[in-house]
């Protein structure tokens, strides 16, 4: 089993590293976007698959990460020092909130720190008060509503419904340049690799086992002397950080972020990626994000009207027949084949042994 999972990871990353050789630039750009989603999916796998906490609000963390980086990009793209949309609202001086984002290093750090801080505060108060299950999921949705409303409402600071866009350089380098795009692609692959390595290390550590124990019986964990609150806050922060990283990388490559991309539907879709791939497996989360989004772009190119039906159908399929996702399906098919081979071998042995026995 260990070898199978090791070689699946190897195959995946070899494919990702070679993809620019045989995929059209346009496809590589799409793939890069999906890899950002895969980073986020690993975080959801950790909190939902391993710890059993269903967050339906990871769009917010993704969005915050993206906005932090986008603010820097926007400032760099604004020759007057004030973003164009602010000018339209009659703002003449850059708001204080924006000022530090002129520094790229600040912006990049903020893309991780802001989501983590939010998760820390929200997680601490909900988990400490033993709010869990459906109630936590509802609170995480409320978080989305609050942030989307806030971002749309504060148009003069956030760019409103349109979000932040129209920027094309970072560190003075054009982001639309083909070479730069490729470098960004490989950087994303690198981040995904780091993310996967970190997640595997975490799940193999004793802390990872405790996360699973929390999923299986949170109260039981208390009577072993553990405070589940701190572990749950920890994993919530980890997944928020990964979502922030994903958002930051996303905005660099896609060139825009809007409240719509952090809304309720995207937040639920994120969970679905992980469900499709297999919620109990890091590998599953990664391929789930890549495959579901590939299917999405295939449908929206060829049959734009059918995507939502497909998504709904996929959801029902996963819930009803593939509770462990593609990875679970692969495993059970693999087991069936090996058991059949073993049976065959046994029979062969019996045939061979036949004459001697009798």
């Amino acid at each position, binding site marked *: 089993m260990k070898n199978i999972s090791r070689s699946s990871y190897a195959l995946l990353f070899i494919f990702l590293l070679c993809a620019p050789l045989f995929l059209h630039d346009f496809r590589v750009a799409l793939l890069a976007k999906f890899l950002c989603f895969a980073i986020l999916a690993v975080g959801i796998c950790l909190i939902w698959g391993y710890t059993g906490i269903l967050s339906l609000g990871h769009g917010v963390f993704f969005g915050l990460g993206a906005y932090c980086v986008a603010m820097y990009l926007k400032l760099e793209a604004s020759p007057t020092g004030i973003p164009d949309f602010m000018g339209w609202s009659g703002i003449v001086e850059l708001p204080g909130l924006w000022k530090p984002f002129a520094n790229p290093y600040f912006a990049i750090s903020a893309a991780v720190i802001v989501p983590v801080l939010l998760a820390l505060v929200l997680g601490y108060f909900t988990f400490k008060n033993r709010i869990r299950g459906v109630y936590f999921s509802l609170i995480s949705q409320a978080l989305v509503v609050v942030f989307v409303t806030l971002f749309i409402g504060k148009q003069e600071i956030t760019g409103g419904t349109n979000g932040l866009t129209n920027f094309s350089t970072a560190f003075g380098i054009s982001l639309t340049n083909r070479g730069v795009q490729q470098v960004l692609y490989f950087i994303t692959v690198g981040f995904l690799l780091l993310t996967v390595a970190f997640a595997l290390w975490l799940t193999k550590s004793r802390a990872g*086992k405790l996360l699973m124990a929390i999923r299986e019986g949170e109260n*039981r964990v*208390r009577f072993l002397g553990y405070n589940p609150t701190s572990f749950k806050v920890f994993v919530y922060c980890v997944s928020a950080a990964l979502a922030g990283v994903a958002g930051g990388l996303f905005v660099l490559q896609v060139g825009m972020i809007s409240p719509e991309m952090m809304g309720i539907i995207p937040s639920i879709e994120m969970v679905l990626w992980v469900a499709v791939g297999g919620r109990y497996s890091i590998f599953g989360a990664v391929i789930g994000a890549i495959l579901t989004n590939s299917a999405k772009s295939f449908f929206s190119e060829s049959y734009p009207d059918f995507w939502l039906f497909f998504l709904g159908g996929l959801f029902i399929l996963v819930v009803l027949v593939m509770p462990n996702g593609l990875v679970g399906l692969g495993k059970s098919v693999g087991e069936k084949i090996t058991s059949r081979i073993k049976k065959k071998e046994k029979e062969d042995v019996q045939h061979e042994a036949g004459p001697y026995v009798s």
Partner: protein
Amino acid sequence: MKPVLTCRDIKVDFDGFYALKGVNLNVFHEEVRFLIGPNGAGKTTLLDVICGKTRATNGQVIFEGSGQIDKMQEHKIASAGIARKFQAPSIFPKLTVFENLELSVKQKKSVWALLTAKLNSEVKAKIDYILEKINLQNERNREAGELAHGQKQWLEIGMQLIQEPNLLLLDEPIAGMSGVEREKTGYLIHDIAKECSVLVVEHDMDFVRNFSKQVTVMHEGAVLCEGSMAEVQENEQVVEVYLGRGKKVC
């Protein structure tokens, strides 16, 4: 002699129904104390109060070395040295037997400590020692959920032992076990008592008679009497309580 655990006038009010009506109890060092009584007497509730699962409406729980513990959070009580085995086996079914024990080992229990914890030879030796004690050496890599019922009970006892508690609370540890398993469990409990005090709730009178020294009888939320099994059996009130419910002590 100073007791390890003292319960003083514990009352528990479940919306007007008093499950405990002022219970006093002392448990001493290296003692195996059996807690018996008819269904609904409040035995489980008393264990719940001691380990912090249920909060007492009135009274104090005092634990040697930690003082008054009845206001402490559950995980702090556990860290102070009180281990609890629940009535229904509550292991972690998707973790292996070994991992169940690994998490239960006495250790620092912060996030950071667990992230950096190493499975060193000392921990391995502890786990091996317990595995042998609870007779699950050959099942170490199986998922705990796959074990037979009796084995699950033992695993849970093992998870309590490996915490190296000062006081172990066992709620009906032999429920659902076969005759041989019961006997093994009885010896295991006595073995445990060499290292910590044990408070056992048990229904099975044969088991109590074979393995108890000191017995506390509860009835309707109060302690009816205390003493050796022989003494308790002679007590008229006890006989009445049990006979009144169609049950016999002997």
